[in-house]
């Protein structure tokens, strides 16, 4: 079944300031969207909205037949999000961290996830003894755990990865797309895959700032 992500006129205001303005984007299944744009152009905001972690103020988002505004829980079932933070506990070992996420997401492909990012050798190492790149690989291995989720949202996944690990990430993305998934990745480095489309976000101009200020009851009548 083909699942298409379509974003139309998506806008987001935070504290009365526009942080995202009229984003239009379509991602077919099997496609990688590389989000580009200067710092502060709303890449992280867009990804967090899609992950259901931020509310949006205008526009609509659909994935297949599911509408993010109407059925946020149903939408979240399709989404795998990897943000700036790796979501790992430093006191636990690499394997304990991944086993935890495997149990939470109710999957049992722990071994596949460990091997996808070459973590088997450091599986019993406490995460606090891992380097930044190794921690990032543990964070990304979570995606391999829940690869059944169709839409991957990656926020700067290549930070502190070496070339080998980047290759592993590319391979994981490639495999995910081959299985009919879509990937939206915010990154500044070129992605060496055949089915990549670029989408550049521009920072919303200040002219829009006062169009739809967030209603703040505390600011009224003062």
């Amino acid at each position, binding site marked *: 079944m083909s699942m298409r992500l379509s974003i139309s006129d998506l806008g987001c205001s935070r504290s009365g300031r526009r942080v995202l303005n009229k984003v239009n984007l379509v991602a077919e299944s099997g496609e990688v969207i590389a989000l580009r744009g200067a710092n502060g152009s709303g890449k992280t905001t867009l990804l967090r909205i899609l992950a259901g972690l931020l509310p949006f103020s205008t526009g609509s988002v659909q994935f297949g037949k599911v509408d993010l505004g109407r059925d946020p829980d149903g939408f979240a079932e399709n*989404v795998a*999000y990897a943000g700036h933070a*790796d*979501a790992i506990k430093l*006191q636990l070992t690499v394997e304990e961290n991944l086993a935890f996420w495997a149990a939470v997401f109710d999957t049992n492909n722990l071994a596949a996830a460990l091997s996808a990012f070459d973590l088997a050798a450091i599986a019993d190492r406490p995460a606090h003894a891992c380097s930044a790149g190794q921690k990032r690989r543990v964070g990304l291995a979570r995606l391999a755990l829940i690869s059944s989720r169709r839409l991957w949202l990656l926020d700067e996944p290549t930070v502190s990865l070496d070339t080998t690990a980047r290759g592993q990430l590319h391979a994981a993305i490639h495999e995910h797309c081959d299985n009919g998934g879509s990937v939206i990745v915010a990154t500044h480095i070129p992605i060496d895959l055949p089915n990549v489309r670029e989408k550049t976000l521009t920072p919303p101009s200040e002219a829009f700032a006062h169009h739809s200020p967030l209603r703040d009851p505390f600011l009224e009548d003062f």
Partner: protein
Amino acid sequence: MKGALAILLRELRLALRTGGGAGQGLAFFIVFVLLVPFGSGPEPERLEAIGPGALWLAALLASLLSLDRLFHNDHEDGTLDILATSPMPLEGLVAIKGLAHWLTTGLPLIGLAPVLAIALYLPLEAFGTLALSLALGTPGLSFLGTIGGAVTVGLRRGGLLLSILVLPLFVPTLIFGARAVANAAAGQDPTPALLLLGGVTLFVLALAPFAAAAALKVNMR
């Protein structure tokens, strides 16, 4: 179900490993109770009078101690974001967090309190009531704490605000808990106070997961 168990086990594991908060509340409780005779004077009559209140106050402050880390760490390292996109509802997450907090701070106090009560000349016939009142009251403290922890989750130094928010909510539990023990120590019937204490806890157990989950949703934005 599998996910709920995994979160509970992880919470316990993190609390018991180095840097966890499990021993902290316990140590605080012991130090507090053992210092009371030095502060008030060691006369048995005086210690008998303030014993129930002091024991309950120590339990209350001990469970307050580790509350600010309840959601803060998970928020900081991104775990909360991923849990929010997982099949586990936030209400369930809050309930598990509250349970784990009680298991690591409230539950050990129930066993420890009667031992320390000896130092405060608590009459032997009140020991059972002391343990029972703590068993009934401390789950309420942990779950009230989840609300405070969730409201202050985004703040860098949320501990102060958390104490101010949560301490007034602890008052009914403190009053009924200390009253039950004092009644038992004076040879009176502690049942009414115990029932009210249990009632407060049940009310909190029912309400807190929804209140804390709502606060988390707002704070994650």
